[in-house]
């Protein structure tokens, strides 16, 4: 790991100023950033640890939505009574990330900013039509993930929270890589006032919506409605864990399981 300057600002305004510096990056749980720095995949002049910013923490209800601070850990989301009652699919998703020690450190903001193709949270952000709130603006979940490890965030921009609209029903199912627990394929299904949304992570370079499943589930929100549905493997990921054909099959199967989980 190349050396860098380390800062841990106590106030949002100081964090904003530091992040305005050239090649300075936010540090959240460090569970993706530090391993990448160790491999010298990245090199930064400074890291701005967001760990002391208390207004980036916590889970609250705001009308018909749940607002979760960017620095809220996976463990906190998994164990939240408030979410358990209002949006339990998110607890299931968070509890399935990595292992307990990763969940104790890793955060919502870090996960979506990183936009790993196998990460779980992107499926919930897209599947619920969430809004990503930053220090500068609000970004629709539909426009946030732009490619492999790519997001709509500008340099110096910091996620402060994510607003998840409450669905009528939601479920998440993933087929996990057994060693890392990342999603070989994960599917988040939600029945919302704006219609049915099905978001797929792990299968493609970036999270995407599965339009044919949305159409089928709009007609009838039932696993049986997916009978005979397929997804073309073109453009899906292929690696030592699973080929594109296999992932295409997994997408349909995980969609079915997510609908069953949604109840």
């Amino acid at each position: 790991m190349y050396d860098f300057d380390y800062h841990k600002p106590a106030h949002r305004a100081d964090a904003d100023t530091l992040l305005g510096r050239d090649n300075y990056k936010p540090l959240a749980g460090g569970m993706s950033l530090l391993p990448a720095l160790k491999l010298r995949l990245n090199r930064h002049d400074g890291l701005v640890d967001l760990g002391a910013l208390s207004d980036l923490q916590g889970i609250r209800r705001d009308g018909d939505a749940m607002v979760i601070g960017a620095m809220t850990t996976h463990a906190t989301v998994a164990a939240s009574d408030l979410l358990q009652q209002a949006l339990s699919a998110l607890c299931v998703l968070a509890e399935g990330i990595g292992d307990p020690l990763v969940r104790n450190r890793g955060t919502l903001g870090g996960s979506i900013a990183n936009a790993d193709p196998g990460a779980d949270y992107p499926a919930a952000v897209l599947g619920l039509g969430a809004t990503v709130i930053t220090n500068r603006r609000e970004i629709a979940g539909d426009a946030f993930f732009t490619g492999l490890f790519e997001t709509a965030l500008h340099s110096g921009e910091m996620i402060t929270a994510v607003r998840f609209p409450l669905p009528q029903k939601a479920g998440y199912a993933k087929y996990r890589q057994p060693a890392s627990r990342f999603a070989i394929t994960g599917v988040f299904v939600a029945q919302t006032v704006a219609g049915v949304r099905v978001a797929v992570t792990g299968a493609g370079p970036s999270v995407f919506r599965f339009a044919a499943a949305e159409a089928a589930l709009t007609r009838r929100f039932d696993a049986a409605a997916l009978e005979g549905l397929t997804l073309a493997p073109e453009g899906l990921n292929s690696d030592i864990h699973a080929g594109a054909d296999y992932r295409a099959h997994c997408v349909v199967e995980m969609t079915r399981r997510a609908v069953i989980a949604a109840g």
Partner: protein
Amino acid sequence: MPTVAMTVNGKAVAGTVEGRTLLVQFLREHLKLTGTHVGCDTSQCGCCTVHLNGTGVKSCTVLALACAGASVVTIEGLADGDTLHPMQEAFREHHGLQCGFCTPGMIMSAVDMVRRKGNDLDAQTIRKQLEGNICRCTGYHNIVLAVQAGAAAMKTAKA
């Protein structure tokens, strides 16, 4: 170079580190607390698990500077003088180790598991909750027995 001060196993400590210095390096190389092991250095194996403000973390994936002012407990800080912590005693009693390399991390992780999941743990819960800790020797069978017994013993020890 920046300095960092924290509490480790109840003692105030300080040292000069780099931005990139990991908590595990600070513990092992600066404080010579070599009970915390580095198995992979890629955040996978859990051999480096310590408690940071009461929560289990992989110390190979935490910066030392991020722990300024924090309280850290390592495997060296668990025993009470010559009396082993109930979880350590359970690993001894149930032969929950062979080479012992993963053991400090297993024990620190097991104590964190009790904090999160309570004292009555079934084998399935223990196996699931130990996913962040890898053992190359034992096949986990006796580790699971040890964690189960250690968790139960921690309840009596507290009472």
